[in-house]
């Protein structure tokens, strides 16, 4: 064990063994805390196990396991080759031994833990209840929960219902009851069960089914767990009865009963039943075979094992149905569940025992396995319990232990296991079976299924909206739509202590000018007359639904600062009997979460009504740009594009004026005054001291000067067709635009089309500093910092003038995006990058981006301020903007795609009654030059119980925050530090949950809050993103580009960016408009005979399997042969067949959803482009060293356990 542990220490991920051990140990540790000795040295464990009477258990489980193993082996026999020996050993005798030990340990742990845990364990372990360990406890806890208090139960139940559980179906169902916790807990329980007895198994079984629950239900269960009851359950556990207890519960024990009913009532029930049934089927093994090999087996295993214990209950319930369903119904789910469950238990189980055993026997046998061995080897024993299960479980959680081996090369180990038992399970088992860990797809699908049908009404405070991936309609009833604001949690802790304890960032992602779906009404515009919007006297908050009218309507009390303000006479209105103003529903500002005020002249810069904004197009006409055809393309496009400038819906023509500049080493301004017969070109060579050479005629109304503009756009390409100038300037270009806007005294936007590193002699001249040697060093951060402070100052000036800069880059080599992007990113602009631009391949993408960028709704010269209830304060802001003080977010330009992430911190206490209110007011100049105030209001609940916090989290938003936080941190800290900090904080979040909210359970179990069960997978995606963990082929520019890009992403974008959407296309519903269910981003999910579409908001891939049917190829590519597909195509041929039409429609639909146009890349399997595509299969291990999901999960588990111990 020690050895293993050390290994872990060395390399958490890769050394699966260590990890495993570590996990197991920590897990132990937790409970162990009591055990103290355990934690420290393996011996402890060993001792533990030994005494635990593992043997007995083991014997029991082993008995069970052996069978399973045998079966597995038999089934897998082929694959397990190497492992064979090992497995056999477990099967034969030793393994059981191991397992027993493991079990014993668990049991001991459990037992011991039980009591203590009862009291405190749950809290400590919070780490990963969901995972295995939790499972048993979870169940217990769940059960316990009910015990503890009906309320909790009900809460849980309700939560269950609400949450995914239902969708979880079989797995969930049960889980739902026990909910997530169940699943996880189940796992542990498995382990326990295995150790203890079949009963334990039964518990585990329960869990396995619950696996789905893990993801969804756990939280619920957990929350209840925290409650007193859990302890009770633990106690029960400790007594060993736990299993029974759990069983009873399952069966429909008193406490559970409630839940059960629920189950019954809700879909979950059936599921649960199924699971149960599955479990009961005991014949799980049999099932396995019958069911899908790997997963099924696991599930079955678990089930089987469980079944044994459950038998009674299960039998009562589902046994009948369950068994069949598992395999058939949700093999996947079932499997995962089982895996989860199994995983954890095993690990712990195995961990200790294995280690011992491993050292003894397995060690040698499993070279590769070695790591896995320990866990696995031990597991092998578990296999006895339910080999399948264990492996699975191991993989999932305990697996951590197991997985670790998997990491290092553990796979082999696990494989061995898996192989031996059930082939399917085997390989995956090593690590965890991917199917057994929380599946993003599952969560997304569940949410979509449950929450898209009903409109989301915002009237209720603290209501978490559906996931960003879900299509749902919003009805604004007093809180801003999630389209505008999303919070990391909709239940803020009341005190900063709680917030600190949980480590859950309190943040909101605000997208003030978001475009609403067509079926929703844009914000109403409210005019309060000459005096401007009604505001609180003290905090200046704007009139909103949170203002309480008192004294018959003569005054109102501010919801934010509680100050009482007189109602101006013209705004007076009587109150009705409920204290509401009579005209409440006639006034949007009183009834809607979002509304827009017209601002008076007091809100204007210099107290002057602003001029209509201007767009200035600055086009690089150096040799590169001309040669690539870019200049031609832009000029041709602008001719039509200028007809589509943004305008108020009430106006026929846009008020926006336009101006044109071309440049290379010098700048060329154009006078396109309508009275001229020909445009005039004015060259400014004095780039050191930029100025605008003309006033009149530079910014013109498109319609008035159309002829001149067209003539200009015709001539620009000709004029520079023979240019030999290769050098460009950049800063002077921005200065030019800025000066032009200054001269015209208006705000506006610059569209800069730039091709190369600005090396010409001028301010802001840059040098090539691309130095890949710095990557990974402490100096890496400098690569993200601008070369000079010049651009920062320039950005400041731009912001002061309301000059937003959008930068389109067309580099053939390094252009230093980190520096060039400073101004765009501080002025609310965007950077678009087209590396090695070629018209045929990138033209479409660029033009579409340009069109959208020009046409989209945009506000200028904006100032955003977030006001909050007393008690919290917006302290940190992330996004593309500039701040000159600590409260005002200044955006030279703010378009409908830009989101700002705001972090809140406590500066006082919040109260549960009043909740936490926030008001985001954005003062901006509309595209017609009107000054407007858009106000978004949002109220969230406040809680004194951590469980409430965890129950109302939004992982997607959390990830958005984490990503932005990390991406900003790398400017100042080494990348590794940032990554570690992220992992650490996440681990703290999860461990806090485990400690405080989840029912006590084995430390080996990974228990995740329902709302955060995807946190690990998403976090892993962030960690292995190109910015934080670059591969060798990623240029510094790309990293800087992505870094800045993510900074202004909203939740939906960041979600798909980090976890790309992967659609299988082979079974396309060509008639309907439903999309096929996405699959997880892993190579294993790809079928050689399939066609897959992957999008991440920036890229769009069509992956073509080598064995795709000819007809399919024919209908998509118009070619029968795989070899004839042209990988350079960027659009599919327009073929007149339903499939092609549908596919193209999907692609178009995808493109329409994203702010940036995605170029289609066709990737043929095993083609040279495939690595690029594989880069986006984020659940897999990446070539740059990024961990696979499974591996990372194990690592997280280890971290959590370390925190808990």
């Amino acid at each position, binding site marked *: 064990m020690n050895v293993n542990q050390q290994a872990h220490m060395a390399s958490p991920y890769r050394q699966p063994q260590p990890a495993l051990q570590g996990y197991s140990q920590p897990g132990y540790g937790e409970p162990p805390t009591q055990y103290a000795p355990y934690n420290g040295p393996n011996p402890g464990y060993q001792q533990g196990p030994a005494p635990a009477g593992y043997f007995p258990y083991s014997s029991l489980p082993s008995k069970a396991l052996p069978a399973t193993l045998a079966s597995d082996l038999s089934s897998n026999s082929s694959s397990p080759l190497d492992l064979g020996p090992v497995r056999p050993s477990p099967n034969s005798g030793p393994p059981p031994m191991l397992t027993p030990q493991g079990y014993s340990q668990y049991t001991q742990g459990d037992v011991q833990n039980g009591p203590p845990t009862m009291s405190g364990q749950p809290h400590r372990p919070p780490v990963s209840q969901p995972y295995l360990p939790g499972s048993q406890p979870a169940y217990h806890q769940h059960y316990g929960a009910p015990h503890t208090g009906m309320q909790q139960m009900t809460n849980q139940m309700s939560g269950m219902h609400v949450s995914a559980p239902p969708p979880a179906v079989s797995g969930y169902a049960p889980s739902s009851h026990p909910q997530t916790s169940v699943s996880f807990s189940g796992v542990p329980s498995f382990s326990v069960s295995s150790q203890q007895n079949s009963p334990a198994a039964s518990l585990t079984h329960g869990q396995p089914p619950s696996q789905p629950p893990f993801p969804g239900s756990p939280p619920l269960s957990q929350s209840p767990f925290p409650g007193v009851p859990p302890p009770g359950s633990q106690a029960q556990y400790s007594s060993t009865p736990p299993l029974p207890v759990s069983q009873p519960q399952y069966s429909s024990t008193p406490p559970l009963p409630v839940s059960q009913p629920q189950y019954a009532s809700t879909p979950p029930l059936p599921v649960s039943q199924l699971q149960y049934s599955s479990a009961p089927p005991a014949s799980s093994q049999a099932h396995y075979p019958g069911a899908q090999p790997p997963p099924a087996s696991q599930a079955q295993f678990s089930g089987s094992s469980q079944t044994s214990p459950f038998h009674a209950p299960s039998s009562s319930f589902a046994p009948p149905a369950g068994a069949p369903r598992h395999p058939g119904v949700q093999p996947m789910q079932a499997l995962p569940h089982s895996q989860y469950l199994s995983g954890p238990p095993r690990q712990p189980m195995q961990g200790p025992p294995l280690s011992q055993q491993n050292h003894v026997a397995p060690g040698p046998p499993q070279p590769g396995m070695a790591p896995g061995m320990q866990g696995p080897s031990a597991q092998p024993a578990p296999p006895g319990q339910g080999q399948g299960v264990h492996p699975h479980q191991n993989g999932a959680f305990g697996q951590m232990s197991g997985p670790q081996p998997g990491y290092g090369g553990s796979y082999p180990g696990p494989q061995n296991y898996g192989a031996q038992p059930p082939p399917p399970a085997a390989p995956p088992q090593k690590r965890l079976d991917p199917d057994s860990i929380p599946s993003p797809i599952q969560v997304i699908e569940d949410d979509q299924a449950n929450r898209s049908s009903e409109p989301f009404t915002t009237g209720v405070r603290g209501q978490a909206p559906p996931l960003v991936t879900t299509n749902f309609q919003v009805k604004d009833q007093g809180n801003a739509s999630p389209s505008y604001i999303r919070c990391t949690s909709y239940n803020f802790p009341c005190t900063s202590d709680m917030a600190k304890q949980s480590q859950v960032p309190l943040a909101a992602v605000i997208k003030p000018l978001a475009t609403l779906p067509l079926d929703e009404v844009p914000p109403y515009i409210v005019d309060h007359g000459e005096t401007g919007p009604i505001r609180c006297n003290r905090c200046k908050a704007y009139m909103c639904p949170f203002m309480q009218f008192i004294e018959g309507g003569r005054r109102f009390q501010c919801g934010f600062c509680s100050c009482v303000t007189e109602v101006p006479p013209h705004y007076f209105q009587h109150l009705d009997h409920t204290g509401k103003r009579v005209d409440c529903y006639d006034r949007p500002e009183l009834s809607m979460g979002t509304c827009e005020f017209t601002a008076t002249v007091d809100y204007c810069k210099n107290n002057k009504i602003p001029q209509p904004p201007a767009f200035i197009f600055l086009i690089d006409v150096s040799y590169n740009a001309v040669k690539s055809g870019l200049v031609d393309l832009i000029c041709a496009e602008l001719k039509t594009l200028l007809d589509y400038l943004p305008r108020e819906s009430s106006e026929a023509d846009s008020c926006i004026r336009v101006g044109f500049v071309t440049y290379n080493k010098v700048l*060329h301004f154009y006078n396109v005054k309508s009275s001229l017969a020909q445009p005039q070109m004015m060259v*400014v060579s004095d780039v050191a001291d930029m100025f605008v050479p003309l006033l009149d005629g530079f910014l013109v109304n498109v319609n008035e000067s159309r002829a001149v503009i067209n003539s200009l756009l015709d001539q620009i390409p000709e*004029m520079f067709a023979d240019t030999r100038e290769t050098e460009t300037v950049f800063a002077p270009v921005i200065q030019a635009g800025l000066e032009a806007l200054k001269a015209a005294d208006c705000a506006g936007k610059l569209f800069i089309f730039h091709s190369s590193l600005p090396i010409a002699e001028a301010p802001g001249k840059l040098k090539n500093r691309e130095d890949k040697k710095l990557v990974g060093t402490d100096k890496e951060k400098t690569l993200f910092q601008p070369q000079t402070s010049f651009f920062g100052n320039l950005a400041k000036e731009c912001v002061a003038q309301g000059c937003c800069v959008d930068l389109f880059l067309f580099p053939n080599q390094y252009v230093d995006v980190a520096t060039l992007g400073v101004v765009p990113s501080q002025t609310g602009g965007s950077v678009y990058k087209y590396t090695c631009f070629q018209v045929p391949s990138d033209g479409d993408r660029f033009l579409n981006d340009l069109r959208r960028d020009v046409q989209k709704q945009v506000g200028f010269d904006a100032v955003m301020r977030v006001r909050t209830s007393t008690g919290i304060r917006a302290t940190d802001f992330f996004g593309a903007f500039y701040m000159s003080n600590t409260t005002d977010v200044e955006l030279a330009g703010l378009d409908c795609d830009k989101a700002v992430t705001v972090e809140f911190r406590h500066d006082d206490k919040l109260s549960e009654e009043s909740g936490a209110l926030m008001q985001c007011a954005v003062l901006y100049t509309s595209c017609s030059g009107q000054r407007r105030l858009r106000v978004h209001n949002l109220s969230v609940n406040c809680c004194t119980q951590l469980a409430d916090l965890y129950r109302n989290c939004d992982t997607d938003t959390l990830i958005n925050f984490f990503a932005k936080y990390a991406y900003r941190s790398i400017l100042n800290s080494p990348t590794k530090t940032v990554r570690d900090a992220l992992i650490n904080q996440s681990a703290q979040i999860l461990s806090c949950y485990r400690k405080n909210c989840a029912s006590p359970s084995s430390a080996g179990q990974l228990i995740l809050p329902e709302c955060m069960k995807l946190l690990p997978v998403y976090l892993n995606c962030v960690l292995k993103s190109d910015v934080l963990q670059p591969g060798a082929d990623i240029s510094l520019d790309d990293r800087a580009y992505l870094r800045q890009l993510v900074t202004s992403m909203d939740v939906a974008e960041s979600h798909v960016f980090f976890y790309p959407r992967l659609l299988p296309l082979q079974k396309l519903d060509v008639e309907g408009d439903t999309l096929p269910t996405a699959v997880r981003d892993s190579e294993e999910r790809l079928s050689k005979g399939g066609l897959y579409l992957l999008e991440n908001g920036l890229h769009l891939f069509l992956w073509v399997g080598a064995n795709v049917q000819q007809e399919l190829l024919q209908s998509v590519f118009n070619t029968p042969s795989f070899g004839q597909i042209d990988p350079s195509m960027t659009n599919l041929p327009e073929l007149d067949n339903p499939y092609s039409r549908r596919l193209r429609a999907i692609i178009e639909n995808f493109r329409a959803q994203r702010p940036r146009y995605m170029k289609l890349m066709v990737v043929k399997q095993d083609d040279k482009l495939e690595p690029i595509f594989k880069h986006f299969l984020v659940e897999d291990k990446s070539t740059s060293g990024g961990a696979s999901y499974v591996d990372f999960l194990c690592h997280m588990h280890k971290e959590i356990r370390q925190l808990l111990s």
Partner: protein
Amino acid sequence: MATYQEFIQQNEDRDGVRFSWNVWPSSRLEATRMVVPLSCLFTPMKERPDLPPVQYEPVLCSRPTCKAVLNPLCQVDYRAKLWACNFCFQRNPFPPAYAGISEGNQPAELMPQFSTIEYIVQRGPQTPLIFLYVVDICLEEEDLQALKESLQMSLSLLPPNALVGLITFGRMVQVHELSCEGISKSYVFRGTKDLSAKQIQEMLGLTKPAAPIQQGRPAQPQDHSFSSRFLQPVHKIDMNLTDLLSELQRDPWPVPQGKRPLRSTGIALSIAVGLLEGTLPNTGARVMLFTGGPPTQGPGMVVGDELKTPIRSWHDIEKDNAKHLKKATKYYEALASRSAVNGHCIDIYACALDQTGLLEMKCCSNLTGGHIVMGDSFNTSLFKQTFQRVFSKDYNGEFRMAFGGELEVKTSRELKISGAIGPCVSLNAKGPCVSETELGLGGTSQWKICGINQFTTLGMYFEVVNQHNAPVPQGSRGAIQFITQYQHSSTQKRIRVTTVARNWADAQSQIQHIEAAFDQEAAAVLMARLGVFRAESEEGPDVLRWLDRQLIRLCQKFGQFHKDDPNSFRLSESFSLYPQFMFHLRRSPFLQVFNNSPDESSYYRHHFVRQDLTQSLIMIQPILYSYSFYGPPEPVLLDSSSILPDRILLMDTFFQLVIYHGETIAQWRKAGYQEMTEYENFKQLLQAPLDDAQEILQTRFPMPRYVDTEHGGSQARFLLSKVNPSQTHNNLYAWGQETGAPILTDDVSLQVFMDHLKKLAVSSAS
């Protein structure tokens, strides 16, 4: 023998030379006692319709330090085919081409009537003339329109192959590219930032790729292609340019209330100079600056843009209160020097009611031989006609302008060159004939005159260095040779050589000869130039004192009188007018700044130091003609006594042409008698001065301000300020009732002046 008058006139007509003394005192000491230095007015490009240029190279003295040109004064040994340089006495063989020379077959340069001769030489590539318009666009709409029309008109006056360029300025400076089709293109510069010539060339894209310097010949053809974007042959782009000019807009930048428009004149000129400097050095080029106001920003700024701060006056300057003056002057001087080095001349056409900063900018024209024209508006005939006259042609249909002139002076041993005063810059050519005493621009024997026309006249000052104890041989003559190389408007390179000689005379024994050979007109002008030259750097009163002292000394030297008896004072005929010239000179705007703005003073001085003798004299002492029923028009005294009610007066001050109707005439005219057939003679009387004035207006450059006024009219001041105030409110009745009009002034009259002069001259105290 002809009178000296005739001799002088003949010499002027033939050689364009007027000496103050036509017989030279033979010793240094005597020469200094003559008070008026030995000097001459030389008009290098004097029009000589009767002088056909010869098509070969001049023959030079072979002594490296001499290099005088063979001339009629040289002794020639026809047999030995040798000639002796009359300056250094070096004996030189004739070149082979002169093999056939003999007494009966002399080359032109040896014939006495060819004391002035012009050679056409074929040297170097010929570059077309360059005209670079630098146009202020901060003008009033009306002015701008008029200017645009004038410019467009001028295109038709230019030689077809001439290169033209256009720079406009206001708040910014735009250099217009003329070669482009379709889109009009210009380079824009900030008006506030001083740029080096190199930067300007870089920014205009004129830097040459570092090519090896071509040997021998300046690489003009190459340069040409570089500058071609900005300078194009007129015949190619006159349509383009006409359109471009017609599309010229007023400077669009808003001028807030109480501000002057921002004018970047300094930068515009700098860019113009830089543009030509970099690409076409040493070619004939005119930078023509048209400005309607003072430079208000950037280097060369004359006044801030706040209207509440008025532009500097003489008062401010005296009080040292003109804060931009020194800086601006220095800036323009530097520009002018650069331009002069490259042989480009700068014209300034300043039309505004207020001052435009000519004081600061004058050097641009003064040093480069460019014109300065000052008017009230571009929309006046004064400007239009004057501008048109810039492109006037001579009897051969050639432009009356030459470029890149280099004047070299050689003297015989008894003489040295002290300096020159005129529109030239020193080339710092030291040599044996350069005096250590400097008068005007001295210390050199060569000057550069970038722009020359037929009137351009330099005052040359010499020093007699022969010692008293080394008398020159009886009958020998001193000689001076002027060698002027220039680029003719036809782009030919030409050399004009003028060789003159005068007799030496011993001042002690032959003083009467010297006295008789005094040219008081030339002397007056030459002394006036010295005075003006001093006035540029000294306080006005000092100059006047100096002038007075010189006059008194002259009178003492050449007057005949009994000591301390003013009434006995007499001057010989050849000196009789001189004191009167001095009297008017003292009152002239060249030395008096009262009632003149600094710009006006600069303007007047500019023209004074470049016009020939006749014009200069008019400037010193305006001409007054009187028209009456009593006889034909007659010149009358420039005296208040000439202002009579029944006369019409026509006064020509060079800068103004004033027609003054006497009180009675004015009343008649007002009554409309001239319309009545029975008073046809009155109509004719009215018409006569107009016709005469028209004649003057037709020929003079710059066109004078034409003033038609009458008794009591406000503009009568032009006349009243010029006439000798013989009658003033102080002595109104002293001179009888019947004549003249009293002048309300405290200035002394000529009579008083003369009385004082006599008194001082005869005084034994001085």
